[in-house]
């Protein structure tokens, strides 16, 4: 099993600096190489071993149940493999988050099949919608299933083991020529949601489209994402988890760590390396190295969460 570990062990040096976003080629290379690098037990793992009180949760994303095109004719199958991988983890996670595009076309049968596969993990799942989950004609299936207790178009927050989790929706009412959007109502809610919380509370924000601009030409960003981040500036540790782009990218800016997840369905090209962001057809024996899940560990006393991307197959 191969894993790519991305933690920030030297944050003491880098805390105040804006770290360079890993360039695409860089991340891609890192990812490729990581397939052959043995898992190393670093500082985080030692800390985990010594620290009984920790929170582990999983992120899955972009299941696209119903997708059957050449890039992966069996998206439900690879979702089931991902769930199998979750079930086989040595330490049972506390819960899962799903960062959207559960289905490909928002069809009831696709939601049903996704539910059936994901529930096999036996974990609570906290969802946010992707644009593919809101394309039924009445735009109601997602909300009926997952958003009953949410605010507005589906945003909400919850707490787990002292960490504050915020699920945001940035795929509704998008405007011509623009990127993802949170909107005024949601930003106001976010401001109120975090108002009374102490700065030492670790915060995890999750949404479908990246909250920072990954690649504007392909619409990979959120126009008012920076406003959301600015509302969180008092917090010492903010982790932003996104999906949508079907590949791992990360950057660290001050106290904020951004990370995007692999899809469980199909990879998409690195920015600018293809005519469009459409599904990337790779050789069959390579597909599972480009799909996967994300394991997130929070260790009390650590400033940052340890984020580990696990492909279905190394």
């Amino acid at each position, binding site marked *: 099993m191969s894993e790519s570990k991305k933690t920030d062990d030297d944050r003491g040096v880098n805390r105040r600096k804006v770290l360079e976003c890993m360039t695409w080629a860089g991340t891609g290379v890192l990812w490729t190489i990581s397939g052959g690098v043995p898992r190393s037990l670093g500082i985080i793992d030692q800390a985990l071993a010594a620290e009984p009180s920790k929170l582990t949760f999983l992120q899955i994303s972009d299941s696209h149940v119903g997708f059957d095109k050449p890039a992966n004719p069996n998206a439900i199958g690879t979702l089931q493999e991902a769930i199998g991988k979750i079930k086989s983890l040595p330490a049972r996670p506390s819960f899962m988050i799903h960062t959207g595009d559960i289905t490909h076309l*928002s069809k009831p049968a696709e939601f049903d099949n996704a539910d059936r596969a994901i529930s096999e993990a036996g974990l609570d799942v906290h969802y946010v919608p992707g644009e593919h989950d809101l394309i039924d004609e009445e735009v109601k299936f997602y909300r009926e299933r997952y958003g009953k207790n949410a605010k507005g178009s589906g945003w909400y927050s919850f707490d787990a083991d002292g960490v504050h989790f915020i699920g945001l929706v940035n795929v509704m009412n998008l405007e*011509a*020529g623009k990127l993802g959007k949170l909107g005024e109502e949601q930003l106001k809610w976010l401001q109120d949601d975090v108002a009374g919380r102490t700065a030492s509370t670790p915060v995890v924000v999750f949404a479908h489209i990246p909250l920072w601009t990954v690649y504007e030409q392909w619409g990979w960003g959120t126009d008012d994402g920076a406003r959301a981040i600015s509302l969180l500036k008092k917090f010492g540790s903010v982790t932003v988890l996104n999906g949508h782009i079907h590949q791992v990218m990360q950057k660290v800016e001050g106290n904020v760590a951004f990370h995007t997840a692999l899809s469980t369905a199909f990879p998409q090209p690195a920015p600018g390396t293809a005519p*469009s962001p459409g*599904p990337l057809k790779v050789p069959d024996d390579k597909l599972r190295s480009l799909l996967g899940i994300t394991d997130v560990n929070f260790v009390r006393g650590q400033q940052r969460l340890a984020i580990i991307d696990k492909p279905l197959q190394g």
Partner: protein
Amino acid sequence: MQSLRPERRSRPLGAVLLVAAFVAATLFLPGGARAEDAAVQIDDFAFSPPSLTVKAGTTVTWRNKDDIPHTVASSTRMFKSKALDTDDSYSFTFNEPGSYGYFCSLHPHMTGKIVVEPANHAAQ
């Protein structure tokens, strides 16, 4: 119809006139579309052509050739397709001259425009 010439002398006059009418309709419309039929292809997350000029009364049909669903949504909410899966199509008839911007509501960086001109040429 200045440029029309019959391909075969033996062809009956009626057929020639039919061909003439068709060619006339084609010649007067940019992009080679017939008077009441024009097409926009959705491919590689783009509308092609991104700007299309038609005569009033023209029905424009968008067809999605991508492996990802798209929509065709008027910037002024005048028209909107449902999500178009691969090879699905959507048609809208433009009766009034004007410029009509549209986009994909799922991938809003995808934008296009239909320019509708008065229909007077088509009547000639």
